């Protein structure tokens, strides 16, 4: 359990010396409890206090890093069960399987396909993170070959999956510098796997049928000296996996239960791609640190990556689209021009309705710091000058011949002033985006 301000106070010198910059030791203790101060601000703190407070302030879920360099995957160190309470910090790593028993051509083909699983949607590149090499052949040589090929032939991070310690050792000889995740430790082999992981400084998973055994394994691995552990959450049924994911996250966050204070990996693999991606996205929104799938088609991977983008968005911070002029459909010089704000939800709602109307149009997304129309207007982030500047920045007058601007119905009140500042005819659009299609069809005339 997290320490309270009073618990912390008891460990401080209680001299009220003010050297930490706070009026009293109690005030400092309260700020420490709220994580608004650092213990190092106190020059007189005892070793005992450092030890106790250091252990208590360690994150309840350990941060684990797979891979190296800019593409490394960091998972764990999450603070909440529900994203609205704060936010989810470390986006789930998405992994695709590659079996080592494929013949050379099929292997190379699939690896190439996996490497190309990058897509661009709403102006952002999205991509998977890891290849999971599965030692299906049970041969050390084949596993090592596969590791070598992936290490040299892919930019992606690696998961090595084998329950054979010898095979793992052979594969690690070819890719340990990539810091792969070692998957395959269980009750029978976990000490030997852990010794390997420790030697090569790699993160590793532990696999067990129950949470009790999983916690035991994590402790055993820790004793060997491995710090970066990932819990392999498996089960006979998706329901069991989903409930285990929640139980582990709750145990770590609400009970500060250290033996399960690690990020989690789930294998969602299923021959039916619809079920596989359904379950992978389910586990993803409910706390999996890494999800592994077989599907390597963009129509399966893109929704999974999009769920991740959505759920790991910071709920406190509105998401913004780039403030600029967007052409919807084949917009030409006589097409209507509308403006809205750069709050992405507002923008995409408007864009969707305009697109639905099948009338090509220009939408000017005005920079309001990512706030909605009414919020921006009330905060004076949306006024005639802001719109005029956005019109000028986007050089709207060079894009269309007419001089008519459709404004959101919610800010009809600014039309007079805007007309004056801009010198354009102002047309007041509907109050809700849903009215846009009919507005464009009936009211708009170039």
């Amino acid at each position, binding site marked *: 359990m997290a320490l309270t301000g009073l618990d912390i106070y008891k460990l401080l010198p209680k001299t009220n010396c003010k050297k930490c910059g706070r009026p009293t030791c109690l005030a400092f203790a309260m700020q420490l409890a709220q994580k608004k101060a650092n213990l190092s601000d106190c020059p007189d703190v005892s070793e005992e206090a450092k030890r106790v407070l250091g252990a208590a302030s360690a994150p309840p879920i350990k941060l684990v890093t797979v891979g190296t360099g800019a593409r490394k995957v960091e998972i764990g160190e999450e603070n909440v069960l*529900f*994203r*609205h309470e704060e936010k989810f910090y470390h986006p789930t790593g998405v992994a695709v399987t590659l079996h080592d028993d494929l013949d050379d051509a099929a292997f190379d083909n699939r690896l190439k396909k996996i490497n190309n699983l990058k*897509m*661009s*949607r*709403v102006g952002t590149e999205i991509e998977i993170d890891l290849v999971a090499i599965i030692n299906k052949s049970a041969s050390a040589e084949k596993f090592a070959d596969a590791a070598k090929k992936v290490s040299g032939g892919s930019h992606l991070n690696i998961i090595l999956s084998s329950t054979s310690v010898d095979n793992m050792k052979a594969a690690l000889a070819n890719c340990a510098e990539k810091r792969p995740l070692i998957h395959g430790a269980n009750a029978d082999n976990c000490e030997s796997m852990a010794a390997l992981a420790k030697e090569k400084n790699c993160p590793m998973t532990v696999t067990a049928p129950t*949470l*009790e055994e999983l*916690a*035991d394994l994590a402790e055993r691995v820790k004793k060997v000296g491995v710090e970066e552990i990932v819990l392999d959450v498996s089960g006979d*049924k*998706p*329901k069991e996996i*989903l*409930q285990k994911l*929640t*139980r582990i996250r*709750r*145990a770590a966050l*609400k*009970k500060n*239960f250290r*033996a*399960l204070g690690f990020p989690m990996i789930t294998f969602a693999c299923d021959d039916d*791609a*619809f*079920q596989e*991606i*359904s*379950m992978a*996205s*389910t586990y993803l*929104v*409910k706390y999996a640190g890494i999800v592994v799938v077989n599907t390597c*088609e*963009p*129509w*399966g991977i*893109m*929704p*999974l990556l*999009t*769920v991740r*983008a*959505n*759920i790991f*968005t910071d*709920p406190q911070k509105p998401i913004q689209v780039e403030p600029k002029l967007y052409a919807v459909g084949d917009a030409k010089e006589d097409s209507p021009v509308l403006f809205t704000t750069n709050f*992405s*939800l507002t923008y*995409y*709602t408007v864009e*969707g309705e305009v697109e*639905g109307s099948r009338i090509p149009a220009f939408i000017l997304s005005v920079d309001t710091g990512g706030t909605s129309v009414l919020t921006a207007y009330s905060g004076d982030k949306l006024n005639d000058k802001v719109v005029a500047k956005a019109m000028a920045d986007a050089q709207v007058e060079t894009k269309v011949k007419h001089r008519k601007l459709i404004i959101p119905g919610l800010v009809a009140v600014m039309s007079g002033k805007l007309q004056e500042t801009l010198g354009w005819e102002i047309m007041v659009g509907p109050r809700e985006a*849903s009215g846009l*299609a*009919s507005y464009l*069809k*009936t009211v708009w005339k170039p």
Partner: protein
Amino acid sequence: MEIPNVADKWTSGVNEVTIGATKDKGGSRQKTITVGGSKCIPFMDFEGNPGHKPVIAMDVYDIPPDDWTETLTRPFADVINDPAQWAKKCVEQYGADLICLKLDGIHPDKGNKSAEDAVKTVKSILAAVGVPLIIWGCEHDEKDNEVMPKVSQAARGENCLLGIVSQDNYKTLTATCLADGHSIITMAPVDINIGKQINILVSEMDFPLNRIVMFQSTGALGYGLEYSYSIQERERLAALTGDKMMSMPVICDVGHEAWRSKEAKSNDNDVPQWGPREERGPMWETITATSLLQSGVDIIRMNHPRSVAAVKKCIDRLY
């Protein structure tokens, strides 16, 4: 090693709402559907009764939708001009738990069909299928206030789920549903406070709480899904901790929203890097639904038969 008990103790839960009425209850449905009743975080039945399984309502339109792609129209090609046959196909072939009749055709811009037309359509569907019916207006306030009361009267006693009412327009439909024994859908645009407010307004007209279903407007995958997700999650938490004005079951409009997105509807030639629409579209709809399920959803409106089948299977495996 012993694992700490992490089951939360909740004091309350989601209301149960029954849709449809059989013969002995004054209707003509062959079965009724009860939703809600959950007393736990979605699918966490180790801490409380999970309530009724989420159900799927398939959309049927009174006029052929003009914005559907070929991938979406093909499964309904033979029935798309006949709402009754369309509904029958959804129930008999595609396993719909309920039918959601969307009265788009009454909208002044989409055909401006009359109340008599709408009543005829409703009656034909009631005659064609035995499942309960959701009837969804065109979201044009004046036209809905003119047509929905007549539709409500025509379906009197069937205990349909009618919607939608918003804080700016709720009195007419609330009074009508109260008089004709229907349940109602309250709508708030991704705003939890307005969501509660509209429930209070409707209940102040003496509308029973166990006949209200909440709609927070749905963000499709990639288009605001996280807003709906978090609001629905907060609504579920509010229900579990005893907020009576936030304890209604939740409905989502997944099909329509998912299929409006580029990722679902774009032609293969335009987005070769995204893969074929035949897979891509149904997958987009499926994943919108399965992700939202984790936030706490009781009724999902859907379109494509493949997505319906996948989501039903997913629910069965998690429930």
